[in-house]
């Protein structure tokens, strides 16, 4: 059963997953068993054996590490290392800390901030004996803050939160403030501060909204100078805790929470990581960034998201006012104080910290005119995509209204026709159309106002598609679409002189050629049947003229060599003088080379043949590896041996006719032919087998 299950798992899941990655093993300081060895280094620093296998440690240095004359000790004697067990301390297990609920990145940030978050003892004691008592809400708020927030609150949001937390929040009033808090501070520790002395527990009767109460509290805090720093630190800490995760690291970011910072950005100006994301949005699938799955958005140690959206003008626009910086809070408090408490009194069911949609929500109004802050230098990998007009129209934007009007006026067909794009988008022609252009313009459209709009766009669309494409290519930009988007910014990486456009242009196209430019310009005009716009050209001066000229020289090049592609161009760069046409013709006329296979049969080495008396595969005395000078010598030697054997054979046959069994001779038989050695020889060479 177990076997079949494991087999099934193997086929299903592929290779078994190791518990630790190789890098993790290194981090943990673990090594596989096979790698447990002592490296022996030579005097020059290299390892004695290439892979550092086990060798005698220190043997080659004249020493030996096995101890002192076979003992485990030294000359002075053996002393065991001291060791104290931690067994007796096991009961002192630390309670769960805020850090225990942080993921890796948060923990890293937290550690780098060099702050310690801990519940103070007096709060600990105030809470119940539950082991979870020091733990806060699931989002990391300490229990004490929870109590402070929701004391005596019976609204719907509170109840929801209460239901979601494992422990019921405190219904009772907060404990008495302790006097010695600020005086005894052996360690700089930040925690959920106790309420300031002037603070009064909120009650349902007052019905004060929580942000206002915070303002009160802050005001009270400000009275006590010694606690100012502490309070601001507290606020910062609170904000950090309250803020949803917005650095877009890792998996499962924000779990699609409606409170996440990313979603407070208007849909039309959303950051997308991929075109698939945009599609999802168009199909109204998945709003939250939980759909990101795995991905890291930042680069080079700084957080792109933070850089883009935590701009000063819009900082914390998506946060609740209570979580803003102090001065902001002050202003908010001042603004709120003007409003009557009754007006801002939350109705039943509201959750403190969240405003109603219909209220005076500045952020919700501003978002429509929200502009993204300048993109940081070197930023890449995130693309700003305008959402499709239809999609946006459903959300009631200005463009939508325009679009609906247009559709109402001209119908669906014209909406989709690219010729009416200028009208739809309200574009104006850039240059005054010349009379030639008017003549060259297409037949007048049915409506007069359309005709005047078409005039500006007409010449462009008359260019054949191929030429248009060439033109686009010649502009030197990469128009990537859909899946071919340059997500990792590979193209941008190869543009040096980012800060100096003139240098950049020179780098990209090093040879400006004005005459060539003119010729090319004329040829292009001829080829595309477009007689334009000398004014356009004439208007260009200086650098602009140079850059345009460069672009168009490239147009010519692309037109000429389009069919050869990039490979040809690179080849051309390296071999400017090569006659490509001729080479291509030759290649076309010549036949493809025939593939030949040479098989050389294995033959034993000559020396080995001699050793075992096997006939040499190449009896001419040739050996695979023998030097060239050898054959004549070898031949002579063979002849001598042969001659001797001949003489001996004749002598023995004449002198000893009684010998019936002439001994088989060495390699060469009297006739000069190679004889096959007896079977026993093969047996002796190849063992018992008959082969």
């Amino acid at each position, binding site marked *: 059963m177990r076997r079949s299950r494991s087999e099934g798992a193997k086929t299903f899941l592929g290779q078994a997953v190791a518990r630790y990655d190789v890098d993790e093993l290194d981090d943990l300081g673990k090594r596989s068993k096979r790698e447990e060895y002592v490296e022996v280094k030579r005097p020059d620093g290299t390892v004695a054996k290439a892979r550092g296998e086990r060798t005698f440690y220190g043997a080659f240095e*004249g020493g030996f590490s*096995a101890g002192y*004359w076979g003992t485990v000790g030294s000359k002075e004697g053996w002393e065991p290392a001291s060791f104290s067990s931690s067994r007796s301390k096991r009961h002192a297990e630390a309670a769960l800390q805020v850090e225990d609920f942080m993921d890796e990145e948060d923990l890293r940030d937290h550690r780098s901030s060099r702050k310690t978050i801990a519940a103070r003892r007096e709060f600990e004691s105030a809470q119940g004996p539950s082991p979870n008592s020091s733990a806060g809400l699931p989002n990391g708020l300490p229990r004490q803050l929870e109590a402070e927030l929701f004391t005596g609150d019976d609204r719907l949001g509170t109840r929801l939160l209460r239901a979601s937390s494992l422990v019921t929040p405190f219904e009772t009033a907060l404990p008495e403030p302790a006097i010695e808090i600020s005086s005894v501070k052996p360690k700089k520790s930040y925690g959920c501060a106790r309420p300031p002395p002037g603070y009064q527990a909120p009650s349902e009767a007052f019905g004060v909204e929580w942000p206002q109460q915070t303002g009160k509290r802050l005001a009270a805090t400000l009275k006590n100078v010694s606690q100012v720093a502490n309070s601001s630190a507290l606020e910062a800490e609170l904000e950090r805790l309250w803020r949803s995760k917005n650095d877009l690291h890792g998996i499962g970011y924000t779990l699609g929470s409606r409170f996440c910072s990313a979603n407070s950005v208007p849909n039309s100006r959303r950051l997308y990581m991929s075109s698939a994301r945009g599609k999802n949005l168009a199909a109204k699938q998945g709003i939250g960034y939980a759909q990101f799955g795995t991905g890291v958005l930042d680069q080079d140690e700084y957080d792109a998201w933070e850089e883009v959206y935590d701009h000063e003008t819009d900082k914390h626009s998506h946060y609740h006012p209570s979580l803003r910086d102090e001065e902001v809070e002050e202003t908010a408090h001042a603004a709120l104080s003007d409003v009557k408490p009754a007006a801002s009194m939350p109705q039943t069911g509201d959750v403190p910290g969240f405003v109603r949609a219909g209220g005076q929500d500045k952020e919700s109004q501003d978002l429509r005119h929200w502009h993204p802050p300048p993109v940081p230098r070197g930023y890449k990998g995130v693309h700003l995509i305008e959402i499709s007009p239809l999609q946006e129209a459903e959300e009631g934007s200005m463009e939508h209204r325009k679009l609906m009007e247009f559709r109402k006026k001209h119908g669906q067909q014209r909406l989709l026709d690219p010729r009416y794009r200028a009208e739809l988008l309200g574009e104006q022609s850039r240059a005054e159309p010349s009379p030639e252009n008017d003549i060259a313009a297409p037949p007048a459209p049915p409506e007069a106002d359309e005709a005047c709009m078409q005039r500006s766009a007409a010449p462009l669309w008359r260019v054949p598609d191929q030429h248009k494409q060439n033109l686009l290519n010649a502009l030197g930009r990469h128009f990537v679409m859909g899946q071919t988007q340059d997500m990792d910014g590979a193209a941008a990486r190869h543009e040096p002189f980012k800060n100096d456009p003139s240098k950049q242009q020179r780098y990209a196209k090093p040879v400006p050629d004005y005459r060539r430019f003119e010729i090319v310009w004329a040829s292009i005009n001829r080829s595309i049947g477009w007689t334009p716009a000398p004014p356009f050209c004439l208007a260009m001066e200086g650098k602009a003229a140079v850059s345009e000229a460069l672009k168009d020289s490239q147009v010519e090049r692309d037109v000429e060599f389009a069919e050869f592609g990039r490979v040809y161009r690179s080849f051309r760069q390296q071999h400017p003088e090569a006659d490509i046409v001729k080479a291509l013709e030759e290649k076309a006329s010549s036949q493809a080379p025939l593939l030949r296979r040479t098989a050389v049969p294995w033959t034993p080495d000559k020396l080995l043949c001699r050793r075992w008396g096997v006939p040499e595969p190449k009896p001419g005395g040739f050996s695979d590896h023998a030097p060239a000078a050898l054959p004549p010598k070898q031949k002579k030697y063979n002849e001598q041996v042969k001659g001797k054997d001949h003489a001996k054979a004749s002598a023995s046959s004449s002198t000893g006719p009684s010998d019936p069994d002439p001994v088989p001779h*060495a390699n060469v038989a009297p006739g000069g032919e190679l004889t096959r050695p*007896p079977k*026993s020889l093969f047996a002796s060479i190849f063992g018992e087998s008959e082969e």
Partner: protein
Amino acid sequence: MAAAERSVQCGLSVTVGVEGCSRGPGHQPVMKLKRFLLRYFPPGIVLEYQRRNGDVETKSIDLLNLTPETDVEVLINQIVFEEPLISENKKDTLRKMIYKLMEKIDNKDSQRFYLFKILRAHILPLTNCAFNKSGSKFITGSYDRTCRVWDTLSGEELLTLDGHKNVVYAIAFNNPFGDKIVTGSFDKTAKLWDANTGQCIHTLKGHHTEIVCVAFNVQGTHVATGSMDNTAKLWDVETGHQIASLDGHSAEIVSLNFNTDGDKILTGSFDNTAKVWDVRSGRCVHTLAGHRGEISSTQFDFTGDYCITGSIDRTCKLWDVNNGQCMETMRGHSDEVLDVCFNTTGNRLVTASADCTARVYNVMTGACISILIGHEGEISKVQFSPNGYKIITASSDRTCRLWSVETGECLQVLEGHSDEIFSCAFNYEGDTVITGSKDNTCRIWKDNFFTPADEDDQYDRYED
């Protein structure tokens, strides 16, 4: 030329150990045969003869391709035809000897070894162990700076060769004589010892760093030492003087061998090459370059015509010594080759690797015959049994294993050491195995049919 060699059919080769030996057909030989000596491994017949001037010399007829299936009559006729020292009337003796050799070769008893003795005299791990030719004694080198001489039969410690100031890393008997021992140490010196008295005859000083390999030539006249200072040095046994310094390697020398004739030295180095040196001139004859990793082990075959190098590039290569060309590259290991070994006749070789396997190759064809799978640690040392039917491997998994060469099956696991085994050796008879381990002990393993050797020498004597 010291040895004139003719190879003939059946692999019979005659080696003459003297100069000026000439023969003419139909003439009375100028030399008189005194006696036959029989050499079992590799099979061969040694002729002891007296020259006209009274000098007694030997020459050998190597029967490297002798098998139990060999046609004896054909072989005898060929020997008589080719060897003037052997006349027609010696045919019966010759036949008797050849049958004896075949009987010895055919002895494939699958005897099992048992632990005979544990030798605990060393107080630090062993580095190496080696038998003398007869197997009556063996020596062990250790990190405790001593070399000890042991009696194989009783397991007694005969001598302690004390005098080195650091690890004794390389040791060797002057086989086949067995009366001298050379030890190479990390104290940069080598020492020559009398194997019977334990006296230090010479201390060979000259290396700048540790000595890691030593070897006697077969004639017993020279000692070679290889060192981490990238050089090998050649020493005269009688005087203890340095004869030559073999300079040329650019990295440590880790392996060193003489060929059978004693006129060439093969050194393997961490500079990825092996070199063949001429003993007389001390010059490098060939550089065997081709490996892409450090050389771990080298060996000449018995004939000295070719040699093998194992490398940590996971291959071993077969080289033609005469022209320095690579004849074959044996591949298949998935980790470094740590040791290589020919069998006594030179038609098989085995490679030990860090991938926990050893592989047996046919030298002639370069084909892998069998893979010895079973060890759980890297195999640091491998050796053929003298008759070539078995292989013993020493591994870091604390065991030695005996293997069948042809089938590749594991015949026996020698368990007992409590730490990895660095060295192992068969004796000449093939009935005793010694293993040296990091656990400071050496163990003697003997087979069930062990009977004390009744021969003083490795040769049977047939008096003429």
